[in-house]
Every structure is written in structure tokens, then in C-alpha cells.
């Protein structure tokens, strides 16, 4: 019990230390800061592939965060920044995949499956009703 409390405390302090390190970045406006945070959440680290840029401490993630920061500072739009990353690291870096022919199943596959499910559901209910009617007759 005492140990777990101790670890909780450590965890608490380590996160505050981390957020302090990040808050050194100075933004022109709070909109820019929100955009920066949204972008590093949404872009995937190319090195440690199950983390986004915000979570990763890999060298390349630090570089890309700095790159995004300076691009926002230069007044580039979100789209320009995302295009810049895709041009260099491929669509792989998008945690929110683009909506195109190649990703059609990814976006609409679940809906198609749901439609199939609903269809099966309706058909089964109907056939059950029919057989019920026959029985009552």
C-alpha cells in the first residue's frame, strides 16, 4: 500500500515535469497552441509506430514536433503542414487516414457490415413471423 502510494506520487511528479518541458514553446496565439497540440496528437511517429508525435520521445519525433512548431510560427495552414509530412513519410503518418479510394473500406467497411447485419436481422425476423403465422393457423 505504502509502495503504491509512493509510485503514484512519482507518476504525478514525472508528468508535471514533462508538461513543463513542453510549455517552454511560445506561441503567437492560443489558437496556434491548440493547432500545434492537435497536429502532434493526430500525426504518427514514423519511428515508434504505435505512438503519435506527442507521446513519442524518439529523436525523429522531437525533430518533427519542432518542424511543426516552426511551420505554425511561419503561418502555414494545417493542411500545408499535413501535406508536408505526407510528402515525406507517406500516408502512414496520418492517424486520421485520408478519405480516398484506397481507404474506402477502412472508412465505410464497418457501415457496410452493419447494413449486412441489419439485412440479416430483418430477414430472420420476417421468416420467424411467417412460421409463427403458419403455426397459429
Amino acid at each position, binding site marked *: 500500500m505504502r509502495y503504491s502510494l509512493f509510485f503514484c506520487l512519482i507518476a504525478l511528479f514525472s508528468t508535471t515535469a514533462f508538461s513543463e518541458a513542453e510549455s517552454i514553446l511560445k506561441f503567437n496565439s492560443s489558437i496556434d497552441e491548440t493547432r500545434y497540440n492537435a497536429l502532434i496528437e493526430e500525426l504518427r511517429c514514423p519511428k515508434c509506430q504505435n505512438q503519435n508525435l506527442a507521446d513519442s520521445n524518439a529523436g*525523429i519525433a522531437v525533430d518533427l514536433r519542432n518542424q511543426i512548431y516552426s511551420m505554425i510560427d511561419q503561418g502555414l495552414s494545417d493542411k500545408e503542414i499535413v501535406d508536408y509530412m505526407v510528402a*515525406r513519410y507517406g500516408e502512414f503518418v496520418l492517424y486520421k487516414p485520408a478519405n480516398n479510394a484506397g481507404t474506402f473500406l477502412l472508412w465505410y467497411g464497418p457501415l457496410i457490415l452493419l447494413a449486412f447485419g441489419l439485412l440479416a436481422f430483418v430477414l430472420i425476423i420476417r421468416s420467424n413471423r411467417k412460421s409463427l403465422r403458419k403455426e397459429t393457423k
Partner: protein
Amino acid sequence: MKKLLVFIPLLVFAVLGSIFFMQLGKDTQYMPSALIDKPLPSVSLVDLHTNGIVTNDGLPSGPYLINFWGTWCPACSIEHNYLMALSEQGVPIVGIDYKDETSEAIKWLQERGDPYSHVLLDELGNFGVNMGVTGAPETFVVNSSGVVVYRHQGVVDDVVWETMKGYFK
């Protein structure tokens, strides 16, 4: 008809199962390069030996390799002997000293030999980002029309060079 419907779940299972099975054992870190079949991004880097700026015009005219390395990178020291052998075979290699200390790099090349036709300095890693590099070592094949045709992440050895050779023209 009804009897056939019963087999749909089994069929779906078989299809999914074979798809998943084919994915087993694949390199999960493999990431295709976005640069393949695109011209080499613009280069403007300082040459370690001459201190002059090298641009795309200063790079080899025939096919060549671009190798990202750094003295901080353990895999690069494993790779180094193989690069030496390649350069002795006459393969031009442009070395990008990636996010490194120049003095360390000079020492490294003096101690182990210099396999590179040019050693260009990318201290901040900006050129690395333009090439879509995620670390070192990484090696690109640029063909004689200046187009990037192949990228390998990790150590170059006999097996990798066999594949690269096919693109090296």
C-alpha cells in the same frame, strides 16, 4: 439454400484466417518510403572535407547510394566495413553525417576509413526529414536520372545489396 447459409460464418472465418495468417512474420517496422520514384529533394549541405556547399549538381551523375550515418549510431559501425567493401568495388556512396558532431565524424572516418565520395553534414537533421528518414542507418538508391528508387532502413549487407543492385542503374 438454407443449408448453404449455415456455412457463411465458416467461410468468413476461413477468408479472414488466411488473410491474418499471411500477415504473420512480416516486418512490422517496415514502412514504404514516400520518396520512391520521385526525384531527389534539393540538396544544399556543407561538405565535411572541403567545407563548401554541395547542391544536387555536385552529386555523382551515375547511380549512387545515399547513406545516412552518425557516430552515435551503433548499427552504423556494424555497417561500415560493408560500405568500405562496396566503395572498393567502385560504388559511389554519398554519406550524410546525420545529427552528429563534426569532430567525432572526422575521427571516425580517420580510424575506420572513408567509403564516401562526399560526406555531407546534416547536423540538425533537416535534410533527413526531407528524405523521410526515421533514424540511422538508412540507405537510398538514386538512379542515373536522379530519381530515388529504393530505400533500406537498417544495416546494408550482402542480402540487402543483392536487392539494391537490381535498382542500381
